[in-house]
């Protein structure tokens, strides 16, 4: 159990004081994958660094398993940090050490005896799938392999918590998915709590149980991934989700504008399906029974940890009363319906 209470961080700069993070209240259950998403400058890097005391809050407390990290100092803080793994966007491996020696590094810091250390390193290298590359130097590895070393190193002292600081942002999409799968696998296998920060909603959707959206140093929206994806409340959250589900959203917006101008009587609606609705012939039922016409503008379906989420943009035309009935009908079938009145800037 991790608890952040009223956490605030103010940096003193030459230009004056800068509030990076404020009013943060978060509680994370053991074994949960908790994602924090936000644009750069939102304060998420500062926030994640407070979990292991790399940054200390100006105000408020950070507690892990009841231990208040934000009040520890010196040796006791270092001891606690050994139980918190961390991986980084740029991997931050020691280039002067081989894969094996990099994994041994945290074990040396924890003063584990040599024999045990070597056995442990071997096991970890196996866990992340790098057997046979033990003697390679980081410069000889690909990005994905480097992050695997980073993960093995972070897991060395059997942490209860793993922090991921934009851990996939420097990787290509294919490698990102491989690393995410590895993180998910480790989370399941070791019941490891993972806190990750990212600017990609894709990462949140793929592996997180819960998500917090950060903007301007504050958490503006929080909830289970499926709920947030189904019913985003804030504009910024909608924007993040839209970027993930519809990378060509600018093109879609153009079509919206044209259609809205051409058929002022029609309605453009954004439908969000979840779980079994995504697999039911809902749309054809609506067309048949309610007598409306429908043209599909854009659609996608995506996998989350809690089932599939479908997103569909359609234009409904016909008598306005019938359109209204159709929308009611969709809502009854537990489809999230959002009428697009004007084009949102994504």
């Amino acid at each position, binding site marked *: 159990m991790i608890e952040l209470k009223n956490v605030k961080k103010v940096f003193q700069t030459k230009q004056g004081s800068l509030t990076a993070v404020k009013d943060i209240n978060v509680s994370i259950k053991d074994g949960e994958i908790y994602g924090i998403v936000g644009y750069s400058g939102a304060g998420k890097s500062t926030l994640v660094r407070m979990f292991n005391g790399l940054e200390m809050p100006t105000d408020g407390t950070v507690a892990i398993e009841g231990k208040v990290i934000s009040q520890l100092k010196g040796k006791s803080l270092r001891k*606690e940090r050994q139980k918190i793994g961390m991986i980084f966007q740029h991997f*931050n491996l*020691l*280039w002067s050490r081989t894969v094996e020696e990099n994994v041994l590094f945290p074990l040396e810091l924890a003063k584990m005896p040599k024999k045990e250390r070597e056995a442990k390193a071997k096991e970890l290298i196996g866990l992340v799938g790098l057997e046979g590359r033990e003697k390679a130097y980081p410069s000889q590895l690909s990005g994905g392999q480097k992050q695997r070393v980073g993960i093995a190193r972070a897991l060395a002292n059997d942490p209860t918590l793993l922090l991921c600081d934009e851990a996939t942002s420097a990787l290509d999409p294919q490698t990102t998915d491989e690393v995410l799968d590895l993180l998910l696998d480790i989370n399941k296998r070791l019941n490891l709590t993972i806190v990750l920060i990212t600017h990609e909603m894709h990462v949140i959707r793929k592996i997180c149980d819960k998500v917090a959206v950060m903007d301007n140093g504050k958490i503006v929206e929080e909830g289970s991934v499926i709920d947030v994806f189904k019913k985003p409340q804030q504009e910024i959250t909608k924007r993040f989700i839209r970027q993930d589900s519809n990378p060509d959203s600018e093109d879609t917006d153009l079509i919206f504008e044209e259609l809205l101008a051409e058929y002022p009587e029609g309605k453009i609606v954004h439908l969000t399906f979840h779980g079994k609705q995504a697999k039911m012939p809902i749309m054809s039922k609506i067309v048949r029974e309610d007598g409306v016409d429908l043209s599909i503008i854009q659609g996608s379906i995506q996998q989350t940890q809690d089932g599939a989420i479908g997103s569909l943009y359609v234009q409904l035309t016909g008598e306005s009363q019938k359109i209204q009935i159709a929308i009611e009908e969709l809502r009854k079938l537990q489809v999230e319906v959002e009428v697009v009145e004007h084009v949102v800037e994504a």
Partner: protein
Amino acid sequence: MLSKLSFGASVLSEYLDFSEVNWEKMQEATIETISMTLGSVVIIFFAGLLLGLLLYETNGKNTVFAKILYRVVAILVNVFRSIPFIILIVLLIPVTKTLVGSIIGPVAALPALILSSAPFFARLVEIGFREIDKGVVEAAEAMGASKWQIIYKVLIPESLPAIVSGITVTTISLVGATAMAGVIGAGGLGNLAYLDGFQRSQPAVTLVATLIILVIVFIIQAIGDVLVKKVDKR
């Protein structure tokens, strides 16, 4: 024309008159140069490493103590790096006299050699440390490394190529400095070239001393290059 040619020949014959060279003295001087260089390099290496670390650790820190320390060390480094060696050695004569008890001989050259080169090497060490990715140091901190563990497990190994090439450059400049120290009686090849080569007009002695110094410098550079290649895994 002919007179010019014969003039050239006579100059050449002066340089090549190896009968003037006392090989035993030359060997002794070579050993003195090498031992003066090596002796000072060992001290400079450790002093420079320590000083470089101090510069690195105090640079950009916000405490008053660190700020003052950084200023003081930085000023000392700049001052001793700027004083021409030949002046420094003369300037230091009283200090040397109290420290070593004599101003003649290889040991007497040490204070000036160390003071002139250690700050220079310290700067190179600091630059080497600063080139290390901050993220790597942060990663070590996140793993619970202590300050001391960060120094000997991260900073030094990660900047080793810079440290090795830095000490190579420093050693080579030291060879030159020992020759200058020879002028005030520190011994070595510089001393021999000055006394026998210049004051007794034996150009052949100067030529041989020069060649030996060149060989020493080449050997140091070659060793440095091999070592850098060996430790650089980037």
